[in-house]
């Protein structure tokens, strides 16, 4: 079978298609900087209220992404939300690290912020965070504010 001009065009076509996928992956998507969950350790946190936290939300420390939320379940005994965090093995945190659910911007996505403590020992795979702070629920905040205002008014 002889090589034809058609083979050349099909070759160019296939290369262009694969290049398009590569462009999508590297330029449009985050394959180049994706936080890969290959080398992580898991820690748990029990929260009173997770607000709008979602699976795969980032875990940040000092604003740097150090992990992802792996799963969220309701602990049927304590009626708290048990959040599983997959944290990069390169980063270790003291055992008295506190986790709080924060919001990026006014209406942005929610993420977990880790604030490291000062303990000598570090968290290990399977550790449970002792200090957690729930998400701020806007309705609760507003109703608290209104009650306070009403109380002030009645005193005057």
């Amino acid at each position, binding site marked *: 079978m002889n090589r034809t001009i058609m083979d050349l065009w*099909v070759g160019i*076509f296939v290369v262009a298609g*694969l290049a398009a996928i590569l462009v999508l992956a590297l330029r*449009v998507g985050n394959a180049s900087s994706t936080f890969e969950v290959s080398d992580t350790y898991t820690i748990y946190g029990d929260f009173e209220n997770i607000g709008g936290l979602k699976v795969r939300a980032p875990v940040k420390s000092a604003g740097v992404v150090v992990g992802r939320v792996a799963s969220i379940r309701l602990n049927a005994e304590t009626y708290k939300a048990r959040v599983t965090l997959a944290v990069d093995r390169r980063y270790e945190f003291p055992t008295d690290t506190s986790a709080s659910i924060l919001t990026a911007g006014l209406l942005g996505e929610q993420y977990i912020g880790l604030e490291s403590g000062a303990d000598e020992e570090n968290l290990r795979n399977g550790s449970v965070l002792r200090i957690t702070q729930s998400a701020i629920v806007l309705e609760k905040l507003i109703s608290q504010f209104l009650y306070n205002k009403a109380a002030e008014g009645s005193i005057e």
Partner: protein
Amino acid sequence: MFDALLAGLRHIGRSVIDGSWRLGYATRFLWLVLIRSGLSFSRFGLVIRKVYFSGVLSLIIILVSGLFVGMVLGLQGYETLVRYGSAEALGTLVALSLVRELGPVVSALLFASRAGSAITAEIGLMKATEQLSAMEVMAVDPLARVVGPHFWGAAISLPLLAAMFSAVGVFGGYLIGVVLIGVDAGAFWSQMQAAVDFRHDILNGVIKSVVFGFAVAAIATFEGYDAPPTAEGVSGATTRTVVTSALAILALDFVLTSFMFTGQ
């Protein structure tokens, strides 16, 4: 009165039975094409020919449509986003809509009308002029010699075309958003990269286009193979290819989307 009712019922019954018959025949046809595709692959030159005819020759329409769809997304997205003061999210909007939905779906629809109809017409005409029967007489299997290469040519081409559609579309959105309107280029790309996930968005988009490719290829080859051997029959089969493919693509898209992108 009673007779008319009975005739109506009979008509419904017949079309249901015909439909099931055709569906079963189509499944058997598809199965035979798949298990004999080893023979088609052993003569890969034939498949390359068909990739040329259905893929390379569809490039122009796919690239131009992708560019314009991306540019329209850029314009419309900007108009809406700027009201909420978040024009920087334009990159995210353009990229996510293209990669997840518009890239695979629109390129599949275009592909079905550009290449699918051509496949149906070619196979249908070969059948009408008894070329397929002639092959059988010569102990050449028309499923492996004619239908298989067409099938695989289409199934290989569509995912590549869809990826190019999305990439060109993002570029079109960039042209309008950043170059023409003046959204900050850094925010455009960085927000896009932060929001578009490789596995969750891009790979799922590619999976969608692979599924659509197989669907269009199966429908186009079957309609051609099943076409009544008349001029009218071939034209009807060509029309049915486009209509059935479009419906199948949209229905499959709904099903795939509902378990790819929900519940996250």
